[in-house]
Every structure is written in structure tokens, then in C-alpha cells.
């Protein structure tokens, strides 16, 4: 092996690392190397294991198996603090700043310059100012993080990583919230670091940034290392092909014939629809009864926010018509009344009262219709619940089991059952099959087909592209809150969707 520090020798090496969360294998037996003086891009679809790999590398996750080497030395019991001390600076995708501390203290947290037993305020401010200048930020280091806009917070995170002159800078989607000038500045900073023999590893949404900044790219798919290539050896199209690979398509039920008596016509019409407090704007689309509309795009580009705006979770504006009722709706209740129901993304937080029994969870939204003289009609309730458990094949079938003791897939069925009982015309499904097994997935897909055949309209947001391409008759691709492409028929392929998602470099 080469000497430490000479160009090309590895600063960091991962050997055969594995990591699983619950039943999901996030990273499978991956080898990954960071040579000195390079910028490495990490590419892959949502859930390919990119972030998990970086977290293992930076000591935030302990791998289930495999080895982490820094500078040719095997590391064990790595923590964020020891990684940082070794010169590995990591910026997480989710911001980790403290809102009620000033920018300066956030930047130097855990490594404050000391004078005797006390923090040296003057040097603290000076060092904070130095790294803020490095990333080209003009924020006052005395400001509270609470008062900063999102892009500024992102810059503070990167500035924080620059403290103590790291040898390897690890950035998980650092550019997603940044303005274009700031992105250019950041790429400049990365190249400066490379000049000094340091290395950068980064993830981005935008294909263009890989080709602008990187020397080499590593592509992951389903937690597996697919390829590591020099940037001159590939084209953006080839990278996309490597990212999606071959997918199985027989995991999906075929479309059903429309029922003869199913209602037709517009189910939902949006004109210049926008969601307050998010960048979702100018969405114009009309959705037919019996149609399954897919909303695709890279995670965090406004898909969830759009659904929440439609369902009355977030305040929204613009034209919004559901049948004869005009939106936007001021509450979830109003949306339900108009026939629009959301199956939320995070079932543990928004979908279920985990400690409560299945039947109580199922009938929670329709309790009013089951109540006579202030008392719940338990006979009618029992009938509804039994029907639903049978229709959705919920197991265990005992309605008195607490929701928290069920598997994720069955919890998700209960959430969907809850929504079915309110009998909406428009179903908003936010990643309905995340983290559940193949068999349950198939059942949920069949249910979506049945809903469509009976004249309901379905809007499906999913991070699983195969799901979108197999179930949807039309697909909107979103980037930065805007619809950047509308695909239908033959155009609906993973390749096309991925191309549209990545093509949307912020204008």
C-alpha cells in the first residue's frame, strides 16, 4: 500500500460494510475508498444507501459488519467526536443546528477555543468569522440560528465542518437548499481543498454538479456497490442507467376494467395551485375519476407538501376544485368532507394512535356517524371493523389488538382502512408501501387498482419508481416545488422520470 498522504493513497477505506435497520438491509457488503486529493460523488436512487454509507464513514452509525480504515489504520468504536478529531468533517442532510444558540457557538460547538477554563469569546468569534468567510457567507455570527433562512443555515453547517481544517470533507446533499451563486462558491471551495491534498465526498440531487465538481463517482443501488468510475469514463445517461439497473415488473397486478356503473368526469382540478410556507407553486393539473396520478421526483422536492396542501394539512392558495366543492381547505376535516383523504407518509406519527386497539384506530375518523345520543353504536362499529379487516386481510384479525404490536405492513393497512371508511372520492397516498414486505405491497397495489376501477381518483407519491411506472396512468415529475415534466403512456419509464428529475438543475 502507498504511503499515507501521497496522492492517490486512500485517506478513508470501507471494507465489506453492512448495515440494516429493522428488516431493511440499507447497506450490503460495500467497499468504498477515498483517495487523497480527490472529489468523489456518491450517486444512487432514494433509499440506495448513500446517506447510511456516509454516516458509517463519519462514525454516526456503527456498521453491523465490515471495517472502517482511516489513513491506513483500522478504526473501532468510532464516534462522531473521534471521527472529527481524526479530521473527518461530516455535514448531515438533515440540519443539526441549535436554534437557540448563536451562529458562532453553533459553528464551534464541542471544539471551542479555551483560555484557561473558559471559552475564549474573541477567538471563538474570529474563528467563526474565518470559516463563514471561507464558505462565502455574510451572516452575522452573533445572530441566533432561529432567525436564519434555510440556505443560510445550510451554509452555517458547512462552515461548521470547515473548523479545524478537515482532511476529508463529507457532504450529504449540501446543495439542495442553496442558491446558485452559493453552489458555485461551494464547488470552488471543494476544489481548493483538493489542491491541498484533502478529499471531498458528496451526494447531490443534481447530475450537473457531479460532472462539474467530481474526479470520480461511486454508484449505489439497493445498498450494493454497483460501480466506481472516473468522471471522464461515463456520460450522465450511463450514470442514470447504472443507478436504476434492471427492475422486476411482475410484482404488480394488472389494471382492472372500469366497473360499468362507476362515475366518470373530473375528480380534482388544480389551477396555479401553491402551498404556503413551501416552494410548491404553479401546479396546474386535472385528475379524472378512475385515474391513478403519480407524483415523482427526488425526495424533498415538494411532493409531500403538495399532498399536505391538498389535504388541508397546510395552508394553500390558487384554484382547487373537488367535484362541486371549491378549495383550498382550511382543515383536514373540511377536506375530508369534500371527499379528499390523505394517507400520511409517517404512519407512526400521523397515521395511527399506536397504543390504541385496531378497531378504535379504524373508526376514529367516522366516530361521529356512529354516534347516537352521545354513545358509540358498538354493534354497527363492530360490523364495519370486521368488514374492513376482511377486505384488507389485516392480521392478526382480532380488532382488539393494539396497533403498536402489529407489523409495519399491517399497520399501514389499518391506516388505509381508516381512510376507506371515510369513503372519499380522491385518495392521496404518500409513500404507502415504505418499509413493508412484498406480499403486503402487492395487496396494496391491488387495492389501488380496485379503487380506480370503482371510479375513485388516486394521487400516488412514491420514492419507489417501479411503483410509479407500473401503477400510474400519468406522472408529474416535481423539482423544487414545480412540475417540471408531465409524462403519460409510453413516456412513463424509470429512465425518463430519473432524467427529468436530475435535469432540473435550479435555474
Amino acid at each position, binding site marked *: 500500500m502507498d504511503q499515507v498522504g501521497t496522492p492517490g493513497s486512500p485517506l478513508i477505506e470501507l471494507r465489506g460494510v453492512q448495515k440494516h435497520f429493522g428488516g431493511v438491509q440499507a447497506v450490503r457488503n460495500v467497499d468504498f475508498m477515498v483517495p487523497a486529493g480527490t472529489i468523489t460523488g456518491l450517486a444512487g436512487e432514494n433509499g440506495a444507501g448513500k446517506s447510511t454509507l456516509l454516516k458509517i464513514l463519519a462514525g454516526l452509525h456503527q456498521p453491523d459488519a465490515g471495517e472502517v480504515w482511516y489513513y491506513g489504520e483500522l478504526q473501532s468504536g468510532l*464516534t*462522531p467526536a473521534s471521527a472529527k478529531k481524526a479530521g473527518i468533517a461530516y455535514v448531515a442532510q438533515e440540519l*443539526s443546528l*441549535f436554534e437557540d444558540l448563536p451562529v458562532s457557538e453553533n459553528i464551534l*460547538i464541542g471544539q471551542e477555543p479555551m483560555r484557561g477554563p*473558559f471559552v475564549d469569546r474573541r477567538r471563538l468569534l474570529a474563528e467563526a468569522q474565518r470559516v463563514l468567510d471561507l464558505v462565502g457567507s455574510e451572516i452575522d455570527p452573533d445572530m441566533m440560528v432561529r432567525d436564519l433562512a434555510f440556505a443560510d443555515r445550510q451554509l452555517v453547517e458547512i462552515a461548521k465542518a470547515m473548523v479545524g481544517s478537515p482532511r476529508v470533507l463529507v457532504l450529504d446533499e449540501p446543495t439542495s437548499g442553496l442558491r446558485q451563486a452559493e453552489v458555485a462558491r461551494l464547488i470552488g471551495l471543494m476544489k481548493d481543498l483538493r489542491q491541498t491534498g484533502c478529499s471531498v465526498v458528496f451526494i447531490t440531487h443534481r447530475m450537473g454538479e457531479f460532472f462539474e465538481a467530481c474526479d470520480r463517482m461511486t454508484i449505489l443501488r439497493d445498498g450494493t456497490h454497483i460501480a466506481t468510475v472516473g468522471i471522464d469514463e461515463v456520460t450522465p445517461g450511463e450514470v442514470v442507467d447504472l443507478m436504476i439497473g434492471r427492475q422486476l415488473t411482475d410484482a404488480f397486478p394488472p389494471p382492472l376494467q372500469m366497473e360499468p356503473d362507476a362515475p366518470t368526469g373530473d375528480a380534482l382540478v388544480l389551477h396555479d395551485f401553491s402551498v404556503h410556507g413551501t416552494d410548491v407553486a404553479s401546479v396546474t393539473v386535472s385528475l379524472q375519476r378512475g385515474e391513478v396520478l403519480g407524483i415523482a421526483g427526488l425526495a424533498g422536492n415538494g411532493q409531500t407538501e403538495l399532498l399536505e396542501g391538498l389535504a388541508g394539512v397546510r395552508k394553500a392558495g390558487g384554484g382547487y376544485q373537488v367535484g362541486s366543492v371549491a378549495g383550498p381547505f382550511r382543515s383536514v376535516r373540511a377536506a375530508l368532507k369534500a371527499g379528499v383523504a390523505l394517507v400520511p407518509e409517517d404512519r407512526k406519527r400521523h397515521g395511527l394512535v399506536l397504543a390504541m386497539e385496531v378497531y378504535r384506530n379504524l373508526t376514529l375518523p367516522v366516530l361521529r356517524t356512529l354516534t347516537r345520543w352521545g354513545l358509540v353504536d358498538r354493534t354497527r362499529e363492530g360490523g364495519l371493523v370486521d368488514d374492513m379487516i376482511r377486505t384488507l386481510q389485516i392480521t392478526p384479525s382480532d380488532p382488539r389488538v393494539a396497533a403498536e404490536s402489529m407489523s409495519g405492513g399491517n399497520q399501514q393497512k389499518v391506516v388505509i382502512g381508516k381512510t376507506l371508511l371515510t369513503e372519499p372520492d380522491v385518495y392521496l397516498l404518500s409513500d404507502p408501501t415504505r418499509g413493508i414486505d412484498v406480499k403486503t405491497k402487492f395487496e396494496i397495489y391491488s387495492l389501488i387498482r380496485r379503487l380506480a376501477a370503482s371510479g375513485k381518483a388516486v394521487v400516488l407519491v412514491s420514492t419507489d419508481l417501479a411503483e410509479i411506472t407500473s401503477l400510474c396512468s400519468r406522472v408529474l415529475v416535481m423539482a423544487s416545488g414545480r412540475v417540471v415534466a408531465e409524462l403519460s403512456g409510453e413516456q412513463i419509464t424509470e429512465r425518463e422520470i430519473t432524467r427529468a428529475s436530475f435535469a432540473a438543475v435550479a435555474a
Partner: protein
Amino acid sequence: MRPVRTYLRREPSVPAAWAVLLVIVLIWLAGSSVSVLSVTIMIGQKVPLVLASIGAAIVIMSRGIDLSVGAVLTVVNTIIAAGTAAFGNSLAWIGVGLAVALVAGLVNGLCVAWLRLPPLIVTLAVQSILLGVALYVLPTPGGAVDAWLKDLPLVLVGPFPLMLLIVVAAPLLIWYPLRRSRFGTALLSSGADESAAYASGINVRRTVVSSYVLSALFAGLAGIVMSMNTGSGDPTIGVPFTMNTIAAAVVGGVSLAGGRGTIAGPIAGALVVSFIGNLLFSMGVNSYWQYVVTGAVLIVAIAIPAGLRAIRAGRQPS
């Protein structure tokens, strides 16, 4: 001027608490005759709550809660009083009392940070144990303290009564260095977001344990001052303290969700909480109305900064 303005902008609760306090004190001064002696004694009565509230606030900043504050205070008080009555030498018994307090704080902290037990129940249990110990040490009110200890509060240091100096010095000597050391940042960050603090290289467990030990230290100091004030011990003296320390912290702008707070705030909060009683008493208000008004003033005191913050948040683009 800029640091002051920055500070006011950051922590609207603190000036609000001091303003409420000022109003109460002014009304009280206008309605009663005061002398240096009566003011000194008055302040002396407030010191235990002020000290205990600082400790409680530190724990709340770490997103915990300490229900054992009043019991720690009581145990220290009864150990000093019973020990001195039996064997003399209050100074030695102050040492014993503080040692017991620190052990209690350590138990709280270890249970919360290492065993991950809920702080509400851990500190409730420790409170129960300590109250039992206090009753064993001193079954009925009584005991004694050395004469020098009893006279200490009224000793003049230059023109100032010692008590007044303790009020100023304790926070300055204990809290200010902590805030200016790494501990302050570690405390607020651990309380705000434990995993983000860990990811930033903060030793979260040690920080949380330290917060409970500090709380016990401040409660122990409060117990010593209490012994000075009363010249005796009482196994039930500290019970009403616990909830008042939490009220004082919240009135002083410490967030119960953790990660947010100062020390000037809880000091003002403690003084507000205890001066309301003085004011109402000197105005001749019925004792049952005193409870009602105290509750109402507390709600107003926390509503003002909450309102200010809401207005400020409304103006800010986010």
C-alpha cells in the same frame, strides 16, 4: 448598545420577568414601611427559592425535570439542625448535608442519563427517599444551629448585608463560569436536540448527569441558607418549594422543552413568585384570595413573553 439589544431580542422572557418583578416591588414598597433591616430579612427569605430555582432551571434546560429539589433542601436543613443539636459544629454538618445532596443529584443524573429512566419518576422517587431520610434524622421540627451561622445573614460586608451579596454572588460565581465554559453550550445543545449534540461531539450523558448534580448543589445551598434563616430544622419545610422552582424557571423564560434559557430569568422568576405573596399580605388580602391572585399573576407572567415571541415570529420571514 448592540449586545444589549441582541440580548433583549433573544430572550424576551427575561426582561419581561424583571419588569413584572419591578411592578410588584414598587407597589409593595409604596404600601409598607421599610428599613434596611426589614429589607435584608425579606431578601434573606427569598434566597432559598432563588438558589433552588437556578438549579431547577439548569435541569429543565437539559430537557429534564427535577422534583427532588424541595426534598434535597429539606434533608440538608434537617441534617444541619439535628446534627448541630446532638454534636455541635454546624460547619461539619453543612459538609455532611452537601455531600448527601450531591449523592442524591448523582443518583438522579445516572438514572436519567445512563439507565434512560424518565426524569419525572426518578426525581419523584428520590424525593420520597430523601423526605423519609429527613423524617428519620429529625422527626419533629426543632434542632439547632451554631450562633455564628444564625447571625451570618445580617453581617455587614462594607455597607451591604451578606445576604444581598449571596444573591448576587452565587449565580455569578457558579453559573457565569459554567455558561462561559463549554458546559453552557453543551447543556443547551443537549437539551435542544440530543442526537444533534451527540453528532457534534458533545458528551451528552456527562452533561445531563452534571445538570442534576448542579441542581442538587444549588438545592443544598438553599438548604443551608434556610437553616441560617430559621435557626432550626423542619422535615416538611421544603415540600412546597419544588413546584415553585419550576414556576420560577418558566416565568423566567426557561423552555420546558429544553435547550432554551438563561439564569437571570429564573432569578427574576423566583423573586416574582415569592414577592406576590408579600405584596398581597401587606395589602391585607385574604389568604384564599392570595392563592387565586398568585395563580393569575403566574399566567400573566408567562403569557407576556409568549405573546412577544409570537409577534416576533410573525414578522420574521422563515
